[in-house]
């Protein structure tokens, strides 16, 4: 009996420290796509959200727990983007490595120039993100920083694969640069156009294209619009000659459509994560998709 126990203990010890693939879990497909490209066959990547849902309120399914239980790294957007669902889930997963604040909980926002850091933190200002706007994943300019952060996380988990990971990162960053150059060349028509957004999640996208946001359908982030606010935004839109009304796949199109009709301007449904539309399977495709729908909408004017 003691010999069997001895063998079991040795096997357990060996398996606990055996260097296999890095188990990576990503909160949204954007991060999963980058991790797959940089990690290659050294990483096993599982993504929790499909990309179709609002990333602030991903329906928490119990099947996420066994996945998180085995994770070495949990890639998150950070800046409290996933605060309503992911920290509680990670705390339940019986995996000390990836709980919020621990070494395996990776916030990919490091090095991003963060916008909208609130000066006043108060619930009367709506559903605020105290550390700033977390929707940087739709800004093409943020791709390189995101890729670098994911590379650093993978490297910390498997330093023995440094050369492999660095080569993949470099190759990916080159493809990001190529796409950025192409997007900039195609999108000069978007520069300076006034738009109305639904939620304060367009800032990085608008920064890249030079689009001017004159207001939002939500009076404050996360607060449903009132009739009074809609009248105000309609009047502002008319005054400033708004060209587009932009919402994303998770927001009900009812109010944007109504507003668009009254302001006589096109509605654009952008994608705010990879997976939001069937044809968007990578982060680079996400950027190309948003560029295309914005330009197509502009042609309708």
């Amino acid at each position: 009996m003691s010999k069997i126990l001895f063998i079991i203990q040795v096997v357990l010890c060996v398996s606990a420290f055996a260097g296999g693939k890095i188990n990576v879990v990503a909160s949204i497909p954007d991060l999963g796509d980058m991790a797959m490209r940089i990690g290659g066959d050294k990483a096993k990547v599982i993504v929790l959200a499909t990309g179709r849902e609002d990333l602030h309120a991903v329906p928490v399914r119990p099947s996420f727990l066994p996945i998180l239980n085995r994770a070495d790294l949990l890639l998150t957007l950070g800046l409290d983007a996933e605060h309503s669902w992911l920290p509680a889930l990670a705390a339940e997963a019986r995996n000390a490595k990836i709980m919020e604040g621990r070494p395996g909980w990776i916030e990919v926002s490091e090095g991003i120039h963060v916008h909208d850091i609130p000066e006043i933190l108060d619930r009367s200002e709506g559903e605020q993100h105290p550390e700033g706007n977390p929707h940087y994943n739709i800004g093409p300019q943020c791709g390189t920083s995101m890729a670098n952060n994911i590379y650093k996380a993978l490297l910390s988990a498997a330093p023995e694969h440094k050369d492999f990971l660095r080569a993949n990162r470099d190759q990916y960053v080159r493809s990001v640069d190529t796409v950025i150059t192409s997007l900039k060349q195609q999108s000069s028509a978007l520069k300076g156009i006034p738009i109305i957004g639904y939620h304060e999640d367009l800032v990085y996208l608008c920064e890249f294209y030079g689009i001017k946001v004159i207001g939002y359908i939500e009076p404050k982030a996360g607060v449903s619009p009132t009739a009074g606010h809609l009248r105000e935004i309609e009047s502002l839109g008319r005054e400033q000659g708004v060209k587009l009304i932009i919402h994303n796949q998770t927001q009900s199109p009812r109010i944007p459509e109504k507003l668009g009709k009254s302001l006589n301007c096109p509605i654009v449904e952008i994608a705010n994560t990879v997976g939001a539309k069937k044809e968007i399977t990578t982060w680079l495709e996400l950027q190309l998709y948003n560029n295309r729908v914005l330009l197509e909408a502009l042609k309708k004017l």
Partner: protein
Amino acid sequence: MAICRAIQSVWSGFCIVLLLTALIIPIQAAKVSPTWQNPDIGLTVDLTTDMHDADGAWKSPGITLRGVELIMSANIDPYASLTGNVLVTPNGAELHEAFALFPTLPLNLKLKGGLMLANFGRWNRFHTHAMPFTSEPRIYMEYAGGMLALKGLELSWLVPVSHFIELTLSAYDRISGHTHDSDPSPSQSHNSSGRTADEIAESIGAEKHGNHWHYQGKILYEEDLYALAGQQSSLEPVKNTGLRRPEEFAYGGRLTTTLELGSNVSVDFGGSMLYQHAYKLSQRIPGETYNKLLWGADIVFFWHPLLANNYRNLQVGAELLSSYEGFERKVVGGLYQDKYSRTGVHVYGNYKHSKQWQVGAFSSIFQSNDYAKQQKIHTGAFCTFAITHYQYLRLEYSRYEYPDLLDGVNRVTLQYDATIGYHTHGRQR
């Protein structure tokens, strides 16, 4: 041989220490702020006002402050967190939860110890204000005396397979329910054998709150009121609250799993049981005890279309709760131990139509927890308007068809809830 054994022993000890060290990784502080030593604090106000026709005419008790829930929580150290939940009412404060949680023990285990909402059934772990309806499910009130806020230990094991299965084993000091909800009842009148608990409470100025009364900073249950009045309620067995042997405590468990049908639909299943061998003590036969077994099964269907998850979803659930309880049956010339078995079911549906509006309905059909085994029905419908994520208004209509309410009673309740600060219920669906 002896040397071999010695090496094996040392190696065994080394392996165990190594494994435990690998599995318990201390927390590293992620963000530094000037308030880093402060715990997370949240405060929720739960107000209701209702009208019912129990006395024939529609009457209202006015505004009821069901509670102001003050929650504090923070990590104690790298290994555990501590949560305290105090419910403040105009009549005093009640400690509702005070537990330490060790979330990442080796072997996929999690330990919770202290006073907690027991991991039992579908709704027991929910704070009342977080339920989709205003009325607490009546099956808990009937068979457990309210929601089970118990002192004890819960050890949960996440089964290490790719499918979600969680098993919880628990030990509590006793089976005891607590509620701030109550059924409307016709005015009580004196009877020849003594005063009712309500009458005793009224005479001493104790304020009723659900299934208990607040009096001079203390919480009194029915038996406490009778004792205070020097009046014995009856010679029926009483709850075992004194010193007990280990086998007289309550023991139970819960098993939960889920079935996912694509990414829009999932079904949760759960089964729970709780047993106390010496739940009640006989007043007629010294040393005689009576046991109680609560068991239940629950199923919840979720539809959460991913594209509209923020403003549209549906959940439909059913929970079965059964109670087996020993009692003393009086017969001519003596008495003997008997048992009765009672069962009830609570079904509900809740549809979220937009970010602000939700509608739903519920029905509890259950046998009365007494010798008579009469059928009781509590059915209702509700509509919730969420002003924002942090405050809501809810209107609920319900009808009680209880044997002692001859024509049935209709009740309309308006509920207002608001939360400030940090208030989370962990992983709840």
